[in-house]
């Protein structure tokens, strides 16, 4: 029997059939042919038995080797503090799940005997029974204070130095709310996504992530840390190689994806006792692996365990960088100056820094919503704001494809910089000779931009302060020479709305306060046709906004609508700013 293949009397066809019977399903005719051969030809039957035994040996050998590796890994993992916490310490551990399965198939005493004997395969390392004491850590859910639609399953909670990937179009989610199917693509920085159920995940750019369900998502590429609160259902995190089910705990994940290779690495930082299974991975082909607290497990390009080491938490923050509480001591907040600052910035820092041609995005400090087009239907002023309908004042028309920006109109198609102060742009910006001064907000037709006043106040410790929104010179196109069609025909309404989560506090159309009406929960401007279509045009036709912003106001929205069906042009709120009213104490001190 050990002289394999020396007897050529077994035909090649039968030998192939024997081998294939262990790898593939035979049809009835093939099976009958095999059975007949085995019954009538002893040499064929001996070969069959030998090959069956060889299969068993391969299974035993491969899984026993995996067991030895696991035992070694367990053994070496005990003095955790003595291990260098570096990924250079990868152990060549192959998949261990299967050998655990194999043990389960054998009665406990038999398994114990096998283990004690080291399986007789040279695995001289005994099983180290490591006992750890301590319960599962408690994690507090991320606060979720929004009253938003149930289809919003997650939200952008915090950002830090984020740049979106340039391929993103529109460049940013319209609001901070994320629905199933929405993708987040960042080139740089950190972005924290909080799920409604309390799961928090922090992406590190470059990264691409998609919200897949109310309790799951998919990391296409990049680095991500996820915290699942105690008591939560398992969080489902998909990758291109398979999916992870994460129990309560803190986990890290990296997904590398290129034309040449795919690789996913899992890091279990906490979640139950050390060395206890805290997550499970199921590859795209159904192979499952239990993942333990304290392990860093690397999966190869087909989703099989490639290496195991100890997890190092350093690269996976559990919390976003926190801005330093700092009272804002100025009296003016230039709104366009917020567009280059993350939600982690203090208001003072935000005012100190500025970037020319920055766009308003919902990851920026104070920006709650940016709608590009689609103003001919009911639209939420913010994710947790009231719905508003602009159809009676020109809401409608196509999206333009650019975002509101500071200083300039920022169009993807035609990136013509336009100043909002009335001064010619000239060559000063290009040669850097003109010091940058924040000038306002440019906004295209059929767009909406909403600021979160609460966030702005918190960033400057300005809670309870009364403010005014002021734009000295609001109008169409400002100083850059427009296209001929725009020059003659473009016609827009400029609207400013102050609101809370439940109601509209005031509304202004082209600088004048107007009434609002509510119908079935949707607000609209209450104006006659003449006033609704008056609008602003190109030329020295500017209006001024001076809008009280009481302490209870939560949102400040800018809207530009398109009154002429074929032609449009951007409008500008030059010098758009919040002027902070002196506090009572300051006012009294002045009087004294």
């Amino acid at each position, binding site marked *: 029997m*050990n002289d*394999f293949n020396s007897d050529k009397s077994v035909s090649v066809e039968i030998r192939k059939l024997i081998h294939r019977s262990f790898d593939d399903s035979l049809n009835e005719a093939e099976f009958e042919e095999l059975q007949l051969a085995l019954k009538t030809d002893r040499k064929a*039957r001996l070969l069959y038995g030998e090959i069956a035994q060889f299969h068993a*040996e391969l299974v035993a050998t491969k899984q026993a080797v995996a067991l030895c590796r696991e035992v070694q890994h367990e053994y070496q993992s005990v003095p955790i503090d003595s291990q260098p916490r570096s990924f250079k310490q990868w152990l060549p551990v192959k998949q261990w799940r299967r050998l655990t399965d194999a043990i389960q198939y054998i009665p406990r005493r038999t398994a114990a005997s096998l283990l004690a004997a080291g399986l007789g395969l040279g695995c001289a390392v005994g099983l180290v029974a490591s006992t750890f004491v301590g319960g599962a850590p408690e994690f507090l859910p991320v606060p979720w204070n929004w009253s938003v639609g149930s289809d919003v399953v997650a939200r952008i909670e915090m950002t830090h130095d984020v740049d979106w990937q340039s391929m993103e179009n529109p460049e940013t989610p319209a609001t901070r709310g994320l629905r199933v199917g929405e993708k987040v693509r960042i080139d740089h920085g950190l972005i924290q996504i909080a799920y409604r159920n309390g799961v928090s995940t922090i992406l590190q750019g470059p990264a691409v992530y998609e919200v897949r369900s109310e309790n799951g998502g998919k990391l296409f590429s990049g680095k991500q840390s996820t915290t699942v609160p105690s008591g939560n259902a398992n969080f489902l995190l998909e990758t291109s190689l398979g999916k992870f089910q994460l129990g309560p705990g803190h986990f890290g994940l990296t997904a590398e994806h290129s034309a040449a290779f795919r690789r996913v690495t899992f890091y279990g930082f906490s979640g139950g006792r050390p060395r206890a299974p805290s997550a499970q991975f199921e590859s795209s082909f159904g192979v499952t692996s239990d993942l333990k607290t304290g392990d860093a497990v690397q999966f190869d390009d087909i989703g099989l365990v490639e290496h195991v080491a100890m997890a190092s938490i350093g690269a996976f923050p559990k919390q976003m960088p926190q801005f330093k509480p700092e009272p804002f001591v100025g009296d003016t907040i230039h709104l366009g100056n917020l567009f280059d600052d993350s939600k982690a910035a203090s208001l003072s820092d935000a005012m100190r820094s500025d970037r020319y041609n920055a766009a308003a995005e919902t990851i920026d400090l104070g920006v709650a919503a940016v709608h590009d087009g689609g103003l001919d239907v009911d639209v939420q002023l913010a994710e947790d704001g009231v719905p508003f309908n602009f159809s009676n004042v020109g809401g409608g028309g196509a999206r333009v494809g650019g975002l509101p920006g500071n200083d300039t109109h920022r169009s993807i198609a035609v990136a013509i910089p336009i100043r909002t102060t009335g001064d010619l742009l000239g060559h000063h910006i290009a040669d850097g000779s003109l010091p940058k001064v924040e000038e306002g907000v440019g906004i295209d037709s059929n767009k909406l931009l909403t600021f979160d006043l609460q966030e702005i106040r918190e960033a400057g410790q300005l809670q309870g302060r009364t403010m005014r929104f002021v734009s000295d010179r609001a109008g169409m196109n400002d100083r850059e020479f427009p296209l001929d069609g725009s020059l003659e025909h473009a016609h827009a309404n400029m609207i400013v709305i102050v609101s809370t989560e439940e109601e509209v506090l005031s509304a202004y159309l082209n600088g004048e306060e107007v009434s609002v009406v509510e119908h079935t929960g949707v607000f609209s401007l209450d104006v006659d046709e003449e006033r609704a279509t008056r609008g602003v045009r190109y030329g020295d036709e500017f209006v001024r906004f001076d809008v009280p912003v009481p302490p209870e106001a939560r949102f400040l929205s800018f809207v530009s609508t398109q009154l002429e069906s074929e032609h449009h042009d951007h409008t500008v709120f030059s010098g758009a700013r919040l002027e902070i009213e002196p506090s009572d104490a300051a006012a009294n001190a002045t009087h004294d």
Partner: protein
Amino acid sequence: MMASAEDTFADLFSTHQQRLFGYILGLVRNTSDAQDVLQQTAVTAWQKFGGFDLDTEFFPWAVTIARYEALNFMKYRRRSRLCFDQELMEQLGEDACEVSGEVAEVRLAALGECLKKLPAADSKLIECRYTHGLSSLQIADVLERSQPSVCNSLRRIRENLMRCISRSLSQECVL
């Protein structure tokens, strides 16, 4: 000191379980099913161990139990309706009993060495098939190859390994 019945059974079963597994695998031709049958064989053998005569050979006794367990398994839980008849199952059992358990252990050691000599691509195939239990169809999907091509490769690799084992054992004069 007399060994307890539990310890005696554990020693006997662990000594022969590898050969039993091979025999069962020949009957059911599926690794996962064979593991299930092996488990049930162990349970039944332990339940009947009181009636086992320690002066007789354990393996033929266990093979008989395994054959009945395999029959039961295929009767109620089999994945394929294609099942060898009882006569062939008995013949395969008799053949299995002719193999020395000691030689089987040496073969395993030789197999470990031969596996180390495999080219990387072949080693990957063996990993997929035996460490991770992927079917030939699943491997074909992963590697973007046809299933027949994967089956052929597996056959070629196994035959090479078996030749390697034969050479290794011949050099050690085990045969």
